[in-house]
């Protein structure tokens, strides 16, 4: 079922129980390096929980999570935070931090407990902000940004961690269509640069057009996974989502999907 991924993320039998309830039930999944993997599935399928488990910030009841040659569950916290970054959905703060300050939080894994950020840290944070196209916002108060602007600032914070594995929970939420496309293009650039990217997406059209691989989650199980074109078929969409789907491919365009209700 799963794609062999010697240099990417490879998780086996991952099991997560929250408040006694089994949310993730012995999942095997993988994400190859240098590619964008979309994590899709209906609401409540466990996408967000799986991402948090793969980021190893949720206690996993059982399973192995490897990244390249490293066992992520055995890694030290700080090393892990230099390896993995997670962009949460709707993370907010009440503190009137400047955008530059928020991005520089991403450098904390590189700093000692009692030390402050260095010139090098500041430069990397500035770069990250530039990468997401938010340099002009550096001195703005983060509490006054729109949801989409804040989402991009948090992506910049994740990039400041210089991760080799980037996990994103609905990174296109709150974004208008042009920002959605530029974010997905950015994820592709990062993947081309060697980062392993996995994003939970609820928009199947975006997933089919912009991901190299998909993992389809339903009811806490992986129901399909593999290269996007071969995996995300009308049949599968009908099985998992209960709607008719038609994949539309046109020369020079990314594929898209037309949906219609089932009978």
């Amino acid at each position, binding site marked *: 079922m799963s794609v062999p991924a010697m240099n990417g993320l490879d998780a086996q039998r991952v099991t997560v129980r929250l408040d006694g309830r089994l949310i993730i039930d012995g999942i095997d999944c993988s994400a190859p390096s240098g590619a964008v993997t979309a994590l899709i599935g209906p609401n409540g399928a466990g996408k967000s929980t799986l991402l948090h488990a793969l980021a190893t910030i949720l206690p996993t009841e059982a399973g192995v999570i490897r990244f390249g040659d490293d066992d992520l569950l055995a890694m030290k916290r700080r090393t892990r935070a230099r390896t993995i970054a997670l962009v949460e959905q709707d993370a907010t703060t*009440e503190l009137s931090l400047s955008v530059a300050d928020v991005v520089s939080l991403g450098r*904390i894994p590189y700093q000692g407990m009692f030390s402050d950020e260095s010139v090098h840290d500041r430069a990397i944070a500035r770069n990250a902000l530039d990468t997401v196209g938010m340099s002009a916002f550096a001195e703005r108060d983060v509490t006054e940004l729109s949801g989409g602007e804040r989402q991009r600032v948090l992506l910049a914070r994740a990039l400041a961690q210089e991760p080799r594995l980037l996990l994103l929970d609905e990174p296109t939420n709150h974004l208008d269509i042009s920002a959605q496309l530029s974010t997905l293009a950015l994820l592709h650039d990062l993947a081309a640069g060697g980062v392993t990217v996995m994003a939970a997406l609820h928009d199947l059209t975006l997933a089919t057009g912009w991901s190299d691989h998909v993992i389809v989650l339903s009811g806490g199980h992986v129901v399909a996974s593999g290269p996007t074109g071969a995996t995300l078929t009308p049949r599968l969409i009908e099985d998992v989502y209960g709607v008719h789907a038609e994949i539309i491919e046109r020369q020079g365009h990314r594929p898209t999907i037309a949906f219609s209700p089932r009978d």
Partner: protein
Amino acid sequence: MLTAAVLASITFAVTFGPANITPVDVWGSILHHLGLGPSPLEPLRDSIVWDLRLPRILTAGAVGAGLAIAGVVMQAITRNPLADPYLLGLSSGASLGAVAVLLLGSALLLPFAAFLGAMIALAATLVLAGAFGRITPGRTILAGIAVSALAGAVTSLIIFWTVTGDSYREILGWLLGSLAGARWPAVGIAAVAILVAGVPITLSGRVLDAFAFGDTSAATLGINVQATRWIMLTGAAVLTGAMVSVSGAIGFVGLILPHAVRLLVGPRHRLLLPLSALVGASFLIWADTAARSLFDPRELPVGIVTAIIGAPVFAALLARRRVNS
């Protein structure tokens, strides 16, 4: 510059009050007691400076700094801008612990009992706030009020059963927050707390920064969230316990000073913590000076002064929150 302001506050605050003492006299007396030269003052006035005013003012400074640091820590870790040792019940818990051992004898255990009281009260507040769902700022304050009320009632009960005559007024003054009884041993207790809890916390501002977007976010930045939360809150309880054991429950210092400093320099903890400590020290020195000089020769408990200033600030913060949300 702020350090200089604190030193100046100490110097000038000592000169306030009867006995006509100048700043030069103050430093002369300090140098004399450090073994450097004769005192410029005759023994009685020298004693007023060295035995009464100086320890009291140093205690005020340490208490102000400690409570401000405790306030910043609690606001950061609970992500609650209204958190403060007084509002979340720590001060009442510490008072209860202190009163219990004070009246059952053994003054030596006082700071430890106060710390224990603060810690238990903190745990009770957080458990109560989380017992019926997600911990929200409002619910935490309500839980703090409940814990405060209970600790206050038990404290009153102990006092009612055991205290007689003159000590009644003394203990009431202490409960309201007073530095009138602060001598060198009080300076020692407060200084030790600043050293073991205040300084390490002040230096680990980046760790508190990591909590800006919540626990999950802190975890992704490599922070051990559970351990850090308890270490930091224990530090706040150590500070509160020590400060309450020397000065009673002085309210609002941990709330108003960090907010004022945040308005000036922003919320980054590397800056916020040391500045809040220094501003807190200056603030409480002057609040206490006002408390002992305004109605001279009668003295107000300094807790009344801080409450008169702090309560309206608290109300303003509440009003601003409603506008925001």
